[in-house]
């Protein structure tokens, strides 16, 4: 699809932390011309309620992602090791706090 011109600046991905200690979560994206503008736009756009404790902005082009086609083989070895889960082990009756 054509992109005739761009007067909006590059895309940034926005991550917010709901409260101290919580993980940062992707909130959405926006356009901005530099870091300061990205932070201010992110505040106005993604934190209008429930004052969060943290905010990250990342240029979208800097994010490295697994491409969807590669995801299955890429993650493949993670599903076949049942012994990685506590439910794999038999706990004899009467054993506490194990």
């Amino acid at each position, binding site marked *: *699809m*054509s*992109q*005739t*011109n*761009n*007067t*909006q*600046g590059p*895309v940034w991905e926005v991550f917010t932390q709901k409260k101290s200690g919580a993980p940062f979560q992707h*909130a*959405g*994206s*926006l*356009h901005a*011309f*530099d870091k300061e503008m990205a932070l201010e736009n992110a505040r106005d*756009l993604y934190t*209008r*309620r429930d004052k969060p404790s943290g905010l990250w902005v990342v240029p979208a082009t800097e994010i490295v*992602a697994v*491409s*969807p086609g590669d995801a299955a083989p890429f993650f493949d070895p993670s599903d076949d090791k049942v012994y990685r889960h506590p439910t794999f082990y038999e706990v004899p009756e009467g054993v506490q706090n194990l």
Partner: protein
Amino acid sequence: MAASEQNALIISLEEQFQSKIDADIRIEPKDWMPDSYRKTLLRQISQHAHSEIVGMLPEGVWITRAPSLKRKQILLAKVQDEAGHGLYLYAAAETLGMGRDDMYEELHSGKAKYSSIFNYPSSSWADVGAIGWLVDGAAILNQIPICRCSYGPYARAMVRVCKEESFHQRQGFEVLLTLANGSPEQRAMAQDAINRWYWPSVMMFGPSDGESTHSEQSMRWKIKRFSNDELRQRFVDMVAEQIKVLGLQHPDSDLKWNAERGHYDFGAIDWDEFWNVVKGNGPCNRERLETRRKAWEEGTWVREAAVAYAEKKKQRSESIVTLAAKAA
């Protein structure tokens, strides 16, 4: 690749795509998708974004004239939310490959549509109440099922939007309830606003199922989860009950509870009016587009300054890199 081989490949890709949708697996921007799925979504999401943006106009004119500081703050927050909704949605549409400037261009040239409801005037303060209660009320019913849309970015944007919408509807209802409990003039104002906004709101769900061109495919793709008429019935039922609390007269004299269906039957919709407004002949179509174009044109210098700043910054950092390389 021979043409027949290529066709076979596309058919198998389409089958895989549909089976993902059937299994409720979300489609993400970099996943393969049929061209028509991309186009349908782009049209729907960008129109949805335009509606949020144009939707700020009828209410925006009341910010300076709100009857109290409290109402002014509430309305300001509500209109700001709508701007936010527009931006979430533009961002979601961009993931499908269309630039933001191109989307604005489609809005300003009249190529892209936005919800027809915003082509009606907001002539009294009570309209702010009616818009919040009826227009946002209808929008919420439309938007809730989209939280489960097959396209990930659209669904996620809609979850944010829906969380913010509920206060929009409530503040509108509260405005009307206050007027309904006020002087006879205030009551009449509330009644008049409801009379004018009710039918256009009923039409917000789009043409009847038989007339709707894109519905069936959108259902199969899980872009749409309920038909226009199903959602419209929910709206009619909701309003029929809520208006009793306002103690005002229902604008539809044919409205009648149907115990057998467990729903309200309602009067005939004036589809000629609907299509007339869609075609651009509503009371405010021209004014809305002119306002948007004017805002865009008057913002040109800001965008130009920002682009020039970015260019300058880029050149500076490049010259520093060159200097550093020379020094080394």
